[in-house]
């Protein structure tokens, strides 16, 4: 399917309507649907969430655009609702978390491989190995606290092994900023990639900030707090690669184009017919949004929208396992760090660097990500499958207590 961002008109805004019943549709199946259906639902929820976030920010800074933004935003609110409500109620927040990390891994891996700018590709690889580690840590939590196998969600597409340990991912703010692409020379795909990954990471951050405190186990609560902090770093990183000199309307146009690109990618890969119909419908909606914003852009800025949306729509995000690629990056770059906007090796990071001092303080009372996965090796069906009955007697108590002490408080 060939899409032309500026020639395909999509569906007119006034025809983009919903009912409440439509907004709470039948869900996908946690058990029967392909893991990448969940991945797409999670990512597209993030994409629409970013659409709303950007739109509100823009409205607060641009009086003349407020009505136009409000019209599109109302539709995007409902698009996000319909997509997010595709998640089934039997999928616990921790199970959805596993889905979030798989999304980060596989989508970032696809993006990193097709990104033409070598510096930006390097930045994506840096983030990739960090989210990769989060999947492993959350899987350990799920296995060790709830006795559940995260691979029920992952469906063997993504490895559950350590990445760059989260312990060393904590960086000082000055080491989280990266160099931005140049809006005048960057390829369209670079702009679409950056907005996509920024959107995904921002939604991941917000999700953990919302559901983290709903987790009952003490170590789980700490784990969400620690990983949410990294997701905040990732948002900082990914928003900094976007040229801040783009005009508001230019950014809006890129956002809408990113939405088209992502729905197009989803349509290309989706196997669930009901979910595919959602992607197809919203692809048409987004083409309508691009047309609307392009007209606005051209009338306000007096320049051709094709200056921003140049060239044909790039190849879609590849919704498939990137295991071999991720392992290759893991072998070569697990020890990478950041210094300012530079990606460096661990050896280059001095003991007094801002990030080292920052994480030493944060980790000074212990690291939840280390503790939850201490010695953890994923095994099909969970860690307990490898524990023989003879070794199953619980570990000695952490502190001394007598059998009949004073516990009946």
């Amino acid at each position, binding site marked *: 399917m060939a899409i032309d961002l500026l020639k395909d008109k999509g569906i007119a805004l006034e025809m983009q309507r919903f009912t409440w019943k439509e907004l709470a549709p039948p869900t996908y199946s946690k058990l029967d649907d392909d893991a990448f259906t969940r991945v797409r639902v999670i990512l597209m929820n993030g994409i629409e969430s970013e659409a709303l976030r950007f739109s509100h920010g823009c409205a607060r800074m641009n009086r003349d655009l407020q009505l136009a933004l409000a019209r599109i935003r109302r539709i995007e609110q409902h698009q996000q609702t319909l997509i997010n409500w595709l998640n089934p109620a039997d999928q616990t927040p921790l199970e959805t978390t596993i889905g979030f990390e798989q999304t980060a891994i596989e989508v970032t891996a696809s993006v990193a491989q097709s990104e033409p700018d070598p510096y930006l590709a390097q930045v994506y690889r840096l983030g990739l190995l960090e989210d990769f580690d989060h999947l492993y840590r959350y899987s350990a939590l799920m296995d060790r606290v709830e006795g559940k196998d995260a691979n029920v969600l992952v469906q063997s597409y993504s490895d559950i092994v350590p990445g760059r340990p989260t312990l060393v991912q904590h960086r000082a703010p000055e080491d989280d900023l990266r160099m931005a692409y140049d809006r005048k020379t960057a390829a369209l795909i670079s702009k679409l990639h950056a907005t996509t990954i920024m959107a995904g990471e921002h939604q991941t951050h917000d999700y953990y900030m919302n559901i983290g405190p709903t987790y*009952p*186990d003490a170590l789980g609560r700490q784990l969400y707090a620690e990983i949410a902090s990294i997701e905040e770093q990732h948002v900082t990183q990914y928003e900094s690669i976007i040229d801040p000199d783009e005009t508001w309307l230019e950014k809006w146009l890129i956002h809408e184009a990113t939405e088209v690109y992502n729905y197009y990618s989803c349509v290309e890969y989706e196997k669930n017919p009901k979910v595919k119909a959602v992607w197809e419908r919203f692809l048409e909606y987004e083409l309508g949004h691009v047309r609307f914003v392009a007209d606005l852009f051209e009338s306000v800025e007096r320049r051709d929208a094709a200056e921003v949306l140049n060239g044909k729509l790039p190849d879609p995000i590849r919704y498939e396992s990137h295991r071999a690629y991720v392992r290759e990056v893991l072998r070569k770059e697990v020890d990478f760090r950041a210094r300012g906007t530079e990606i460096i090796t661990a050896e280059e990071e001095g003991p007094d660097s801002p990030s080292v001092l920052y994480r030493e303080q944060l980790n000074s009372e212990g690291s939840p990500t280390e503790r939850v996965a201490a010695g953890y090796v994923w095994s099909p069906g969970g860690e307990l499958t490898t524990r023989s009955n003879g070794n*199953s007697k619980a570990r000695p108590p952490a502190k001394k207590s007598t059998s009949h002490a004073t516990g009946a408080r």
Partner: protein
Amino acid sequence: MAQLENVKKAVGQNRTGIATAKKLSAEMIEGTQEFAPTSAGDEREVAAVRAEASSEAGRIGSIPPPASVKQAVSTAAKAIQREKPTLFLDKLGARIGFERSGTRLYEALLSKFDIHGSFTGGPSREELEQIHHDELEHFHMLTEAMVSLGGDPTALTPAGNVQAVLSQGAFNIVTDPRTTLPECLEAALTAELVDNDSWEALVDMASIAGEDELMTRFGNALAQEQEHLMKVRAWLAAHRAL
């Protein structure tokens, strides 16, 4: 008077009932009298929407396919011979998940024990360790049984999913750092009650399927689970008597 003092010491600042806010709650009631409902009808609307949604919702999930072609042939053959063979695999999958999670549940109970200790007539560490040991043993035995029947022990079956959702509350209680050992034993009681009934069902199903060896093994597990239930009940009774 001493009794009144004891009651005063035992109660706290719970604000959830109307008795702690007599004036405010009177205003609340008064408000409902002035401002009448704006929507006609009653709670039957909830049921009506449930009915609409159910007609479109599909199922939670399906039984996974057999692990190999050979096993698929075997399963098909057995399907002719036996009644509802997939239901057997479904329920077997549910017990695998439940026993694995139960092992972790008792690890959390052991943590609770180590933090707070027990109470007169409550569990000893050795007793909790024994149950933990039994749960793990049952998990391994069920895994072997599933493999022997051509199923995939790592799959989450629909019945397993239902039981996992049901037992989420027990985990939330046992892993919450604020809960006491007796509160956690209430969670264990819920789990053990379900477990007892589920093992009984599994023994029946093994019998109907003609799996005599499995029936014996499941029967032994049921006996252990009955013992767990009796113990948890006794601990809770002892706590009530304190």
